[in-house]
């Protein structure tokens, strides 16, 4: 079969969901033109006004999506860069996430938000952040973070069948990564994927860093260290059993993500792992993430900012040393 890309899978999933479910809508800036990365390419031609271009009004756009969802539609709101979700968190965290609870279960808000994280494009501190950890801290939001094309399409399909808000956190560096095409199929929310089995160290990695972890695992395997790479895929609800089960076998754990280490998803994983597998751990859970700094533009600085395979390999080595 031909290759596919992460962005292609997103585009396919949107088209397929729109064909299947007349309630699906797309709302965002430049979505009719396909968006800057092509995620919504061709959809306006096929679905007309169901694909709605908006002005630059992120704060309200999120609420418009929520208001559509409360009235029975299934909107997909696109926030081009997660950096701009800073403008839209009132509607996401205060309205959409809490509508069901505050109404005592009268309301459901099947809102899907697509947004992108990630540095490496030299786009600077306001177009490169990874802020997904904020969303974990908001009860009522599911958060998925695909690392592969199959998951990008499959998790989006599942999000579009969920009855509560789901944020799909994509990664810009993965958009054009080629992958052998697989049939588009829903990937369940809340199920981790073991990307590579291994007996020596568990590495929990998200999004782009899954591929870095796999590269590190390849290298380490040459020295005889077998790393089990777990991709949670969903940050909330988290598939803790898969992670804890693995650590109970390997006795060691590294967590890696692109976001700033302090206050990141890795802190939650480390806290949970030490809580649920304390007796099994032979070493502290190691955390890898970005340093405490905004994302710089300068190439050598940005390269140093990103968690890449060598850093993961080094962390694993120091755990097994």
């Amino acid at each position: 079969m031909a290759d596919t890309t992460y962005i292609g899978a997103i585009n396919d999933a949107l088209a397929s969901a729109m064909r299947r479910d007349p309630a699906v809508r797309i709302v965002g800036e430049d979505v009719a033109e396909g968006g800057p990365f092509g995620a919504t390419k061709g959809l306006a031609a096929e679905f007309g006004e169901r694909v709605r271009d908006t002005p630059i009004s992120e704060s309200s756009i999120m609420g418009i999506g929520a208001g559509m969802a409360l009235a029975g539609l299934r909107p997909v709101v696109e926030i081009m860069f997660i950096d701009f979700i800073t403008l839209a968190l009132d509607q996401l965290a205060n309205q959409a996430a809490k509508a069901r609870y505050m109404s005592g279960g009268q309301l459901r808000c099947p809102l899907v938000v697509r947004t992108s994280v990630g540095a490496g494009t030299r786009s600077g501190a306001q177009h490169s952040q990874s802020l997904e950890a904020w969303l974990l801290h908001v009860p009522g939001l599911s958060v998925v973070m695909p690392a592969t094309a199959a998951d990008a399409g499959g998790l989006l399909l599942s999000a579009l069948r969920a009855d509560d808000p789901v944020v799909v956190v994509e990664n810009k560096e993965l958009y054009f990564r080629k992958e052998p095409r697989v049939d588009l199929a829903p990937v369940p929310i809340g199920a981790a994927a073991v990307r590579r089995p291994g007996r020596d160290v568990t590495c929990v990695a998200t999004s782009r860093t899954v591929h870095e972890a796999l590269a590190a695992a390849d290298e380490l395997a040459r020295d005889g260290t077998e790393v089990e790479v777990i991709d949670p895929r969903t940050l909330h609800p988290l598939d803790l059993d898969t992670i804890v089960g693995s650590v109970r076998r390997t006795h060691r754990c590294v967590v890696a993500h692109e976001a700033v280490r302090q206050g990141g998803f890795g802190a939650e994983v480390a806290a949970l792992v030490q809580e649920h597998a304390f007796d099994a751990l032979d070493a502290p859970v190691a955390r890898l993430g970005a340093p405490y700094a905004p994302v710089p533009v300068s190439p050598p600085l940005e390269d140093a900012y990103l968690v890449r395979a060598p850093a993961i390999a080094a962390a694993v080595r120091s755990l097994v040393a």
Partner: protein
Amino acid sequence: MWLIRAFEESVSELVGTGEVVGLVHVSIGQEASAVGVCDVLEARDRVYSGHRAHGHVLARGADPTAVMAELMGKATGLCGGKGGSMHLVDVTHGVLGATGVVGGTIPLALGTALALRETAPGAVAVVFFGDGAVQTGYFHECLNMAALWKAPVLLVCENNGYAEFTPRSAHTPVERVTRHAETYGIDARTVDGNDVVAVREAAAALVAPLRGGGGPALLECLTYRMRGHYEGDPARYREASELAEWKAKDPVRRCASAAVERGELSADDAAACEAAARRAVAAAVAAARSAPFPPPSALTEDVGG
């Protein structure tokens, strides 16, 4: 209107006794906008409110016992006691949300209007908000998009001249909210918000084109809150004379006496209306009072995520 008045007076007392909990904003003095607007709405329409929401929900037909129970945090409350005064929702009566974040339901209403246009053509979405909300980005972003997309949404500004403790003049140099609508070519009217008949007429005139596929509309109701911003606010920031002036324009009494004057109602009937409302509220209070609190399990139910 008497129902709302009696309800709010009762709420005010029950805040005093601690039975009604939380940060409570009553709408005494503003009943006419709720009643006048909701009177032209149909079952298929959808309504959103703000932090001063009791009147809107009651005007839509919500059960006073369930509203009162909600304000007390009881299991039988509209929202099972979890939402409270600023978050009243009554899906059965088409109320999809109220908000503690000023301006926060304006985009929700716009989104709902867009949905209704496709799923229930002819239905409208309505959102009530205060003059303070007019200075939020939400109001302006949504005014633009509502006009751009000709959404069937009616924006109702209850302009009571204050946002919390601060008068309009310290918030904006723009005196009339309708001025903003003009910029976008949006149909808009300013009415005496203490005259329920005037409100009703203006609302009917604005809503009719929306049902026919027309663009958004804005209704500005000039009114006054006869109590402090929240229950407990001594309202030292305003003159006694101002309050007295507005008391003379009390929308509830004015409506009743006008009806009597026009001969539509006898003085006895008018008094009976008030008495019936007070009885209904007393019964609602009694029922809400004796209702149970939610079980501990409710804490983590209906979270989603």
